[in-house]
């Protein structure tokens, strides 16, 4: 190998390293600035209006929905999800629990209530607006998902296995991208979500407003869209599989004070 070529190789290895370091700092500044001037509050306000809105055959609102801290108790409720619910004998995340209340309180069928759970920039979905509002009511509360009940432990274990399980035509698992420190796709840093240090800031800022498409996104969407890019078939909305992954991520990131709903790229 001629000398200049070696030099080229060494130079190329050196330069991006240095560039990568300040670019990480600059991107963090960008993230801070978009969080400071974000319209996410508009989604929280609309979520509050929906929480109170009478709907469904029973013409009832969601104000009596028990998110784990008692009927209608909102303050800090999101920070303690996912958790086991005796009335449904099942571990539920926020969206699954909202779906449950839409059935139990409003008399709506699961099929109707989950017809359009992922919205767009012109028409956010009910779940997105409600998630913004309910999550906002946990600001400052440390994330404390359920970890004691056998079904909570089982959900965590299943989530962990799913996180590492490689499948699909591209043989991807979550760790294919979220498995190694300091890696990125394009300019997108990839947190190693199996470690508390990386999981904490993530679980503390989802659900979130995404500036790239002006849409408010939930954790169910986040898991759904990851599987799409893993070239997998589509996960069932609010299925045990999606709740298990959300449980694994939230338990891994527990203890972090919630500071969402966030604003992201």
């Amino acid at each position, binding site marked *: 190998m001629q000398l200049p070529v070696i030099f080229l190789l060494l130079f190329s290895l050196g330069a991006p390293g240095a560039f990568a370091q300040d670019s990480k700092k600059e991107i963090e500044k960008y993230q801070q600035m978009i969080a400071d*001037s*974000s*319209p996410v*509050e*508009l989604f929280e*306000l609309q979520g509050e209006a929906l929480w109170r809105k009478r709907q469904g055959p029973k013409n009832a609102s969601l104000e009596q929905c028990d998110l784990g801290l008692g009927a209608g108790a909102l303050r800090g409720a999101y920070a303690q999800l996912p958790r086991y619910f005796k009335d449904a004998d099942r571990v539920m995340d926020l969206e699954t629990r909202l779906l449950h209340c839409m059935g139990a309180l409003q008399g709506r069928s699961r099929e109707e209530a989950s017809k359009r759970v992922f919205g767009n*920039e*012109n028409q956010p979905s009910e779940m997105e607006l409600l998630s913004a509002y309910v999550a906002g009511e946990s600001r400052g509360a440390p994330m404390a998902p359920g970890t004691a009940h056998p079904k909570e432990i089982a959900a965590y274990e299943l989530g962990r296995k799913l996180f590492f399980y490689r499948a699909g035509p591209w043989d991807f698992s979550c760790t294919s991208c979220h498995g190694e420190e300091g890696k990125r796709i394009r300019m997108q840093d990839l947190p190693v979500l199996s470690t508390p240090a990386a999981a904490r800031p993530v679980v503390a800022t989802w659900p979130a407003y995404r*500036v790239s498409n*002006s849409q408010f996104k939930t954790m169910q969407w986040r898991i759904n869209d990851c599987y799409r890019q893993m070239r997998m078939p589509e996960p069932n909305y609010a299925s045990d599989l999606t709740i298990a992954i959300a449980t694994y991520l939230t338990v891994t990131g527990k203890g972090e004070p919630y500071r969402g709903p966030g604003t992201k790229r």
Partner: protein
Amino acid sequence: MAEPMKIRAVLKGDVAEVRVLMVHPMETGQRKDANGSILPMHFIQEVTVRVNGRVMLEGQISQAVSRNPVFSFRLKGVKSGDKLEIAWLDNRGERSQSVTAIA
């Protein structure tokens, strides 16, 4: 169709920090909808900030301002309780207006 705004105006010393969130698509005329047809230009052109009826600041903005615009301004010589009114007018002649008291 007019969409309201979310205004926060807080007096810090003799300067009021004003932050306003607006609901508007701010279409550039270069985007396509789901079935491929161009979404026409649709954006706020004028923003007016009044305190107790007097115009203190005017903005002329374009489709280069992000969707759901968020502005921050600073106003001096105002006191808490003053009536702060922000209005916008878009390229279709639609208007929206909101009033709040400076905290």
